[in-house]
């Protein structure tokens, strides 16, 4: 992909544009600071198409400005009747053929990239290579579940992946349609209610470091009142650390020592456990998994996907979820909790750590 770029005549224009655009947005979120193979490919295509389009705009603008200035009505010429021209075949052929050529220049890399991005053969092989990481993404009304079928573990809200290798995704939704998008790492794909979609992404280690270790993920399809708040976070780790994380997850169990937290655990087991699991190894079928898995809740970066991760915000969320995420499915399912109960629950939840 990079080679034809070098040969491209508008290389200089490219670099200027790239410089300008790179100033745009945050490294953890912006499509203009690509952080992986997919985003790179798409960014190159963006630059190419923008370059062609800027060229078109420049040509049109030059003619436009010339015409508007040169042929404006001048004083005393109000009655002048210009020559009535029918057209010009030569000109018309020119402005038919040149756009076709420009479009071919754009169409070829587009088609090639479209096929490359859809290459999910490795994940669908009968005997899939053990090293390939596959994640089942399930989108729900305002939260995300990430299941690692090969490791038998489940997590929610924070996606953990290895860097510098292709990670494959199965995507689906359990209630209404959502769309899975990590802008800095690659374009989106819809999570449908009818079928399973598949695609791959690659997370670049250097870009991850530059972004501060975390990328922002978004829901890109209108899905209800809290569509805007259906964020998730991505933690790419070097392969070794990722493997260690998987091992920890496989064996994680809640360890409660604090007495207040113990109290919280009791409340949890009474009011919350019907929906939320606290072990990453959740053998229930997905229909039964109606709320985020909380096994590593203490390690998370956000409460409910959006609030800063601290006890105060957790209490706020537990007290009145609708004030944080309107229309969520948790509000009203666990009765009224007293402040003391909420304190206990908070202590317990914050103690749920894997790392």
């Amino acid at each position: 992909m990079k080679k034809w770029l070098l040969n491209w005549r508008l290389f200089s224009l490219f670099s200027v544009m790239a410089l300008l655009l790179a100033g745009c947005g945050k490294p953890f979120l912006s499509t203009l600071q690509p952080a992986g193979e997919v985003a790179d490919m798409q960014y190159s295509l963006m630059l190419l198409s923008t370059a062609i389009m800027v060229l078109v705009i420049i040509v049109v603008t030059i003619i436009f400005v010339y015409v508007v200035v040169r042929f404006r009505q001048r004083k005393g010429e109000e009655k002048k009747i210009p020559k009535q021209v029918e057209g010009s075949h030569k000109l018309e052929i020119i402005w038919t053929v040149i756009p076709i050529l420009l479009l071919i220049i754009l169409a070829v890399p587009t088609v090639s990239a479209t096929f490359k991005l859809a290459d999910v053969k490795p994940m669908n092989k009968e005997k899939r290579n053990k090293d390939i990481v596959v994640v089942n993404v399930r989108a729900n009304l305002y939260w995300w579940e990430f299941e690692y079928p090969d490791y038998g573990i489940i997590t929610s809200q924070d996606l953990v992946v290895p860097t510098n290798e292709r990670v494959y995704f199965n995507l689906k939704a359990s209630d209404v349609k959502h769309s899975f998008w990590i802008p800095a790492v690659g374009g989106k794909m819809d999570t449908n209610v009818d079928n399973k979609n598949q695609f791959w992404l690659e997370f670049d280690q250097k870009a991850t470091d530059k972004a501060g270790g975390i990328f922002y993920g978004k829901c890109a399809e209108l899905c209800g009142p809290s569509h805007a708040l259906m964020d998730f976070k991505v933690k790419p780790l070097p392969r070794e650390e990722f493997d260690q994380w998987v091992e920890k997850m496989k064996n994680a169990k809640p360890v409660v020592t604090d007495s207040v937290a113990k109290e919280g655990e009791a409340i949890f087991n009474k009011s919350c456990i019907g929906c939320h699991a606290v072990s990453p190894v959740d053998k229930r079928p997905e229909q039964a998994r109606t709320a985020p898995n909380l096994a590593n809740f203490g390690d998370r970066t956000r409460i409910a996907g959006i609030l800063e991760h601290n006890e105060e915000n957790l209490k706020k969320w537990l007290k009145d979820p609708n004030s944080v995420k309107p229309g969520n499915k948790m509000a009203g399912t666990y009765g009224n909790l007293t402040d003391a109960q909420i304190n206990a629950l908070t202590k317990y939840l914050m103690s749920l750590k894997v790392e």
Partner: protein
Amino acid sequence: MSTVARKKSLIWDYLTTVDHKKIAILYLIAGGFFFLVGGLEALFIRIQLAKPNNDFLVGGLYNQVLTMHGTTMIFLAAMPLVFAMMNAVVPIQIGARDVAFPFLNALGFWLFFFGGVFLNLSWFLGGAPDAGWTSYASLSLESPGHGIDFYVLGLQISGFGTLIGGINFLVTIINMRAPGMTYMRMPMFTWATFVTSALILFAFPPLTVGLIFMMMDRLFGGNFYNPAGGGNTIIWEHLFWIFGHPEVYILVLPAFGIFSEIFATFSKKRLFGYSSMVFATVLIGFLGFMVWAHHMFTVGMGPIANAIFAVATMAIAVPTGIKIFNWLFTMWGGNIRFTTPMLYAVAFIPSFVMGGVTGVMNAAAAADYQYHDSYFVVAHFHYVIVGGVVFALLAGAHYWWPKMFGKMLNETLGKITFWLFFTGFHLTFFIQHFLGLMGMPRRVFTYLPGQGFETGNLISTVGAFFMAAATIVLLVNVVITTAKGQKAEADAWGDGRTLEWAVASPPPEYNFAQTPLVRGLDAFWIEKMEGKKGLTPAEPLGDIHMPNSSILPFVISLGLFIAAFGFMYRTEHSWGLAVGIIGLLITLGSMFLRSVIDDHGFHIHKEEVLEAEKGVKA
């Protein structure tokens, strides 16, 4: 004008009119009203997004405003305003006395009107639809209350109106052209109307079917989009976009037509490359049906489908490019007068080119995975719809206002409107390209601080207020003009080229005392250049046959309006079914009356015509 039975009150006159010029005014008023409503909704959206974590419109309510903004602007503002222009101008441009089906013309308007009113009543009856103007099936089936039902039934009713209008204009243009008006002498706006009407004819039925399915699912327990019952939500997406993409061209082709007229008029030159313009228009219309799935690149159709639709979409850029250059070369060598309509036309070129090139960028499927459902797309389609369609409607309104109402809009105020609107438009939408690329999804009611979205959104909101100010100036202009505007002559701008400028402003009820003989493209210009004052008549002066007015179109539409309420409340109120059936009976009964009562129209006698024509000349 002195014709028979002119003693009716103004309101009754408009309720029963079948005159295309009055129907045009009805479309203009109703469409204009909905344009204000949709604009207000847009302002609310921009206020909410002015700063992060704002709480002006939160969650579900924001989604309702967002849905109604899109639905209103497309179906209840842009479409009827396009129909206003078509009704006001096309019959006269082809030298006809009326459209082919005057009764159906009125029916089309009233169906649209009642559909639009029905849809907007949702605000007062439990909440508006909240699943976006695209109303994707999984979300719209989940949506509680009756909001989506209002959407489904309201669009169904107004959709019938549009379909009827489309057939009407097709037949009018094919059958009613004056002698000598061959297809290749038709003004560009008439050509655009012709192609647009064909698009309406083939694009609206899939929407009708999609809406029927959604109605069945929501109100009658159907399973079309319900995966649990074997249904499939993607069917809705296909049906919607098979309609939805041609819809873009249904709106933008008439816009191209309007600008083609304006460029020629105010450059005092005939349209450059007329035949290639016609060819491009037809080609755009044709390709418009081949590309719907580019709205669904991320749905998971697979790389083959994505690649095919990507390339097909890029192809549309070619005929559109031809048009842009033809317009530029229409001005080339001309004697350009910068009137208000011409300002819009000139500003349209760079604005629309921006929307066009981002369209090609979106067509690159692999890159579109990034643009899709982000603010980049929001910016793109507003550049097309506002920079193309709304500019055209504003231009057309200023251009044909004297023809429709007999008075010139104030040019100074017109130019103020233009500059405010133009500035506001670019201020609002240009920055949104970058917001999208920076990772901001569309249809979000808020955003958190620290993601780099603050400045862009604030600029965008400021821009929206410029457009609001422009609209207010326009309204003031309309009021002032109506009160004490300068009377317009037949050839109101002095440089008219097409037939509508040969008849009085406003035209008499019968348009032409004598059907004109058309001797070439720009028929009126040809006559003027030969030093003649009027058109060459194709027939001797005689009695003129006119259609009768009728209240039935109003009643037929009212019946459907009532029926829609009945069926919607059928499940929770016992009266629902009865009301639904009564409504349908009103509609069917009126159709029955229309069928059994003979309607032969009436004649305006030769003497009356002479009298009226004298009044104009004096």
